[in-house]
């Protein structure tokens, strides 16, 4: 039996999916179709004949949709510039933009304060100090931005700001003796730890929910992509400024180093956070495509790497730089995999990227296995150092993460469990990272006597 109502609905859904129509436009077109069908039925045609002829007379869906896009295109770009929810949205939006500007200036100024105590940003001797503290100059402001946005209660605000304060206090009070490995390790791990704490501010009171944590992973991925783009823009601006002023014999390089790089860097971070959070419709169209573009490329690189390593017989056991490279690549790949998972469209039945993701995870697992054996080898031959223990811990947490993901992905692909199961496991695993990062940043210096 031909279901007329169902067919009319699916026709209008088909139009709706093109996105060029307003709801009222669709209603108008749908009513036109209904009028036409009524008349045809009255003339003696059956329901399905009338439907087919009606749809045919209305014309080619692509052409109609294109015409509508011309009429409605004004609205399309207005959506990009103006917050959709009216006056309230506009004033709220202004408030956030004001916050972004103020916080960028505050963060930049905070970064200049150590200069009063004799520190110099580009002095090699002070490099470690700035490296260690870099995240403390910017992340608290991002966290406060989210706390303001959520109008968080005092308990949440106090805990998050308390953690930032304690972290700043501890790492700067810790002594440091050559070869300063633990201080460097703190510098590497603290930003990740603090970023996850900032994540708690981002997620607000629902920080325990899988969905919110998935949002945070997604937010992280998009912030990285957009931050990089904006930062490249700032660099181009700086180079351009320096070049044109040099043409009139004015040297701006110290101004650029002293001010533009500091304030520009802080502004990059704040603007990125704002853009990713409030211009979602712009970001969402772009970032997943980039991620999908790069995941096959990473897969090719990793497989090529494994292949060449085996063929050439070169052992990565010898050089410690190899290990750092390994870990960086693994973190990048894991980030990519997680981002693709978080940006996944649950209604999309195309499983190509699921298979690709699984392949990436498996390749990363093998590389991680190689790295682990290299670390164990170095540990047994050269003895224990904080660097090696930290690397061991990192690779173990990554191994468990990748292994778990691979297992759940496989089960998902053979339909043994559903996708939310995988997301739940992954988001729960985030707490392992928080703990490990905190251990390396705060407990390692004590364990290894600040060496």
């Amino acid at each position, binding site marked *: 039996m031909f279901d007329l109502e169902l067919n009319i609905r699916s026709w209008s859904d088909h139009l709706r999916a093109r996105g060029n129509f307003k709801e*009222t*436009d669709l*209603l*108008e*077109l749908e*009513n*036109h179709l*209904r*009028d*036409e069908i*009524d008349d045809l039925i009255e003339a003696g045609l059956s329901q399905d004949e009338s439907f087919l002829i009606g749809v045919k*007379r*209305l*014309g*080619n*869906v692509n*052409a*109609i949709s294109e*015409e*509508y896009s*011309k*009429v409605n295109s004004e609205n399309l770009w207005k959506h990009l510039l103006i917050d959709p929810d009216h006056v309230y949205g506009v004033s709220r939006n202004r408030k956030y933009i004001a916050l972004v500007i103020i916080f960028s200036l505050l963060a930049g100024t905070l970064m200049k304060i150590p200069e009063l105590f004799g520190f110099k940003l580009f002095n090699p001797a002070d490099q470690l100090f700035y490296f260690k503290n870099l995240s403390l100059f910017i992340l608290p402001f991002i966290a406060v931005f989210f706390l303001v946005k959520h109008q968080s209660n005092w308990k949440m605000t106090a805990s998050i700001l308390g953690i930032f304060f304690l972290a700043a206090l501890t790492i700067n009070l810790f002594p440091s003796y050559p070869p300063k490995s633990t201080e460097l390790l703190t510098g590497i791990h603290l930003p990740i730890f603090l970023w996850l704490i900032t994540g708690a501010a981002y997620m607000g009171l629902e920080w325990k929910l899988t969905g919110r944590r998935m949002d945070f992973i997604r937010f992280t991925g998009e912030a990285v992509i957009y931050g990089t783009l904006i930062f490249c823009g700032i660099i181009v601006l700086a180079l351009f400024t320096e070049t044109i002023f040099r043409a009139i014999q004015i040297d701006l390089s110290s101004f650029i180093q002293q001010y533009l790089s500091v304030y520009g860097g802080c502004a990059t971070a704040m603007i990125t956070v704002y853009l990713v959070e409030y211009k979602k419709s712009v970001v969402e169209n772009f970032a997943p495509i980039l991620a999908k573009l790069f995941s096959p490329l990473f897969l090719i690189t990793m497989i090529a790497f494994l292949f060449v390593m085996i063929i050439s017989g070169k052992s990565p056991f010898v050089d410690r730089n190899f290990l750092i490279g390994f870990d960086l690549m693994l973190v990048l790949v894991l980030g990519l995999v997680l981002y693709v998972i978080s940006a996944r469209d649950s209604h999309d039945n195309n499983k190509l990227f699921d298979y690709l993701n699984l392949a990436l995870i498996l390749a990363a697992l093998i590389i991680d296995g190689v790295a682990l054996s290299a670390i164990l080898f170095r540990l047994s031959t050269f003895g224990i150092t904080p660097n090696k223990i930290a690397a061991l811990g990192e690779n173990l947490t990554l191994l468990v993460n990748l292994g778990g993901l691979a297992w759940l992905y496989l089960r998902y692909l053979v339909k043994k469990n559903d996708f939310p199961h995988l997301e739940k496991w992954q988001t729960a695993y985030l707490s392992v990272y928080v703990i490990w990062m905190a251990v390396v940043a705060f407990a390692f210096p004590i364990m290894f006597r600040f060496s």
Partner: protein
Amino acid sequence: MNVSKDLIAASAVPLILAILKQGDSYGYSIIKKVKELSGNELVWSEGMLYPVLHRLEDQNLIQSYWRNSETGRRRKYYTIKDDGLKELELQKKQWDMVHSALSKTWQKLNQE
């Protein structure tokens, strides 16, 4: 007879304005009137009428409002505005001019 696409597109605006001058109407009924008037010779791709209507509304020539029909269906009616009437007069003059020019040439062709 197949009327060329360009001619259909060019004649759409004066036809719509002329029909609306006779009284408010909605999309489907405008299409029916056009068919009637042209003896089923002018066949529009019906979906294309609406973008044209919306553009006319943007140009402030016509105005729309929603009303419930007897069958309970919500319909978007269009009504012609003063600017629309002026535009219709202008188009009428232009078409008359083209028409008279063409008529004269046809006559000459017939005399030869």
